[in-house]
């Protein structure tokens, strides 16, 4: 398993993270790579160093690939242009969180077709409806999932209030439909993905949380009435009692801990792919 023995992987984290950071780190270590973690606090980023210069410094120190988490959408493009290195996007602003979508997919596949080992294709998730509910506007997890799942044939329903789910979301790609009535969406779904309200990105938005819970909270009554067999996912962090109750999060339909567990395998695969694909001439 030491495919990346002594290879050098840098983790560059401008935002806090528990699951993503730890699982990327464990993934790299399990493959034998040396990892270095740089986070915004406690590095020269605090002194105003640019993303470009931080990337150049990491490359000069031997980084062969960089795992980046950043609050600005598109930051991986800046780092890629600056360093020429393979960049793994560990979440950029409101844009994407691709490794999360892949581990969500793995979790879905494990449950929906446990015994089958056939390779995934455009029809693997045909007939499967996945509802993503909550703060979709601010969610990079939602964007990555709504772009990924329809490529395997799934139908994606988005549910949430206007302020957190603009109409334009439905035109982000094919196979995406907005259903603001969460109960109606649940009735049709085999998979339900709940999202946290991202208070840090709300920027003055006024949201009535009681009203929100009434309409969009995943609680026992609602799940029992409208989606008693659905798989319940949540990328975390969870705000218990807001978008999801403890009964549902810890209940028999929940695969939340399993999602986290799948993160390591998915990220091992991504690292192997990124480092083997790295063009050798580009390292300076």
């Amino acid at each position, binding site marked *: 398993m030491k495919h990346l023995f002594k290879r050098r992987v840098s983790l560059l984290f401008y935002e806090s993270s528990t699951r993503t950071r730890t699982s990327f780190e464990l993934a790299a270590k399990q493959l034998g790579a040396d990892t270095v973690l740089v986070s915004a606090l406690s590095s020269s980023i605090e002194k105003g160093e*640019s*993303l*470009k210069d931080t990337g150049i410094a990491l490359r000069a120190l031997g980084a062969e690939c960089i795992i980046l988490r*950043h609050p*600005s*959408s*598109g*930051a991986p*493009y*800046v780092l890629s*242009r*600056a360093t020429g290195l393979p960049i793994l996007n560990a979440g*950029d*602003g*409101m*844009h*994407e969180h691709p490794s999360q979508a892949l581990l969500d997919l793995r979790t879905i596949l494990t449950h929906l077709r446990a015994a089958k080992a056939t390779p995934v294709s455009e029809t693997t998730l045909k007939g499967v409806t996945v509802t993503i509910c909550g703060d979709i*506007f601010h969610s*990079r997890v939602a*964007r990555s999932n709504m*772009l990924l799942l329809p490529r395997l044939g799934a139908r994606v329903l988005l549910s949430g209030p206007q302020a957190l789910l*603009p109409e*334009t*979301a439905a*035109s*982000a*790609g094919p196979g995406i439909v907005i259903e603001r009535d969460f109960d109606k969406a649940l009735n049709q779904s085999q998979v339900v993905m709940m999202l946290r309200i991202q208070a840090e990105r709300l*920027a003055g938005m006024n949201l009535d949380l009681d009203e929100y819970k009434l309409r969009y909270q995943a609680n026992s009554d609602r799940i029992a009435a409208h989606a008693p067999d659905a798989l319940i996912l949540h990328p975390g962090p969870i705000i218990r009692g807001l978008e999801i109750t403890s009964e549902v999060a810890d209940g028999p339909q929940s695969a939340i801990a399993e999602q986290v567990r799948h993160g390591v395998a998915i990220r091992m695969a991504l690292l192997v792919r990124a480092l083997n694909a790295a063009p050798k001439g580009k390292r300076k």
Partner: protein
Amino acid sequence: MKPILIRGGHVVDPASGLDADRDLLLRDGRVSAVEAPGKLNAAAKQEAAEILDAKGLVVAPGLIDIHVHLREPGQGYKETIASGTAAAAAGGFTAVCAMPNTVPVNDSPETTRWMQSPERNALIRVFPITAATRGSMGEALTEYGALKAAGAVAVTDDGKPILGDSIMRQTLAAAARIGLPVIQHAEDTRMTGGCSMNSGALAFRLGLRGMPVEAESSLVERDIRMVAELKDSRAHLHVAHLSTAKALEAVKRARRNGLHVTCEVAPHHFVMNEEAVAEYNTHAKMNPPLRSEADREAMLEGIMEGAVDSIATDHAPHAAHEKEQEFERAPNGITGLETALGLTMAVLHGKHKLPLSRIISLLSTQSAAVLNLKGRGSLAVGSFADVVLFDPKGQWKFHASESKSKSKNTPFDGWTMLGKVSATISEGRVVYRS
């Protein structure tokens, strides 16, 4: 200064309705004669005039850009008046109007005069546009009379649009009394906080906050209502870098109602749409942002049908390190002086067959008219000897690295242009030759 005979060219001068082969004699900084080919040879010889052979070239009034950022005073690392006007001359321009968002903001006669003083080494004429309110803070009006006397040709708070109803009404009324146009960068900034591109499906997909078209159109509509209320004052509103079909409709309605409302469109808004932002290209980030394809087409149609008065570049140089940042952090704006003619010719003339006289009108004659620049935008005898010579069939590639601007922030690097500038003459002096 030696007289110049421009010989053998095809004169396109919308001001005098001329579109014919003519020779042109320039003397003492003015156009001294325009005659049939060969008719001026004797006079030129007698005066020992320098001869410019314009065979195969269009001879037109020098281009006029009524919206540029020259960055002086205060931000000479992005551009200086010298470097900006050198880029302008290379692009065929003989006059530029410089926006007041300098450091400090140009809100005084002193700064206005400083910008025009010979020490700035401007290659062509610079007309300052001064702040409408002190420090562009939107609170107290500047001294329009003194500013006009110092050379200001309009007032604006440009990037800090005037939102308050009362202060905008005062601005329009006071400027009308002095005879200055009010230029508005129409953006209701209450709707665009944290936004870095056009609102819509693409912004959603890229995870960027989008500026709605209504942020532009609602302010244009508000401003037009105010001009209507002040109708007897002859207030003149000029809408800067118009970018949306909705705002263009408002301008057209205002004109049908006899109001003095004019507008300009930047080349990038009729050449590109928001797709250029994909992959977070900061060289395609400007304000107003690149819009939808429908809005781009509306700008094109507005120009073709004559609803747009002027093509202006919004030349906005920024240093490399400023644009090499995260998309949301990078400053707005692109350079435009060296690509305006080439893009306009390629798209409006080459592709959409707009006659040369209309092209020149949009880039010179009407631009001069919008800001009332007397003796500019015309080759009639007695006008300033501001002339551009260009090959209307000349295709060329623009290379940002060769730009005369201090900054290279352009999305048009490597693009094929039409209409190659051969020479630019500013008030009788040759300031650029290819």
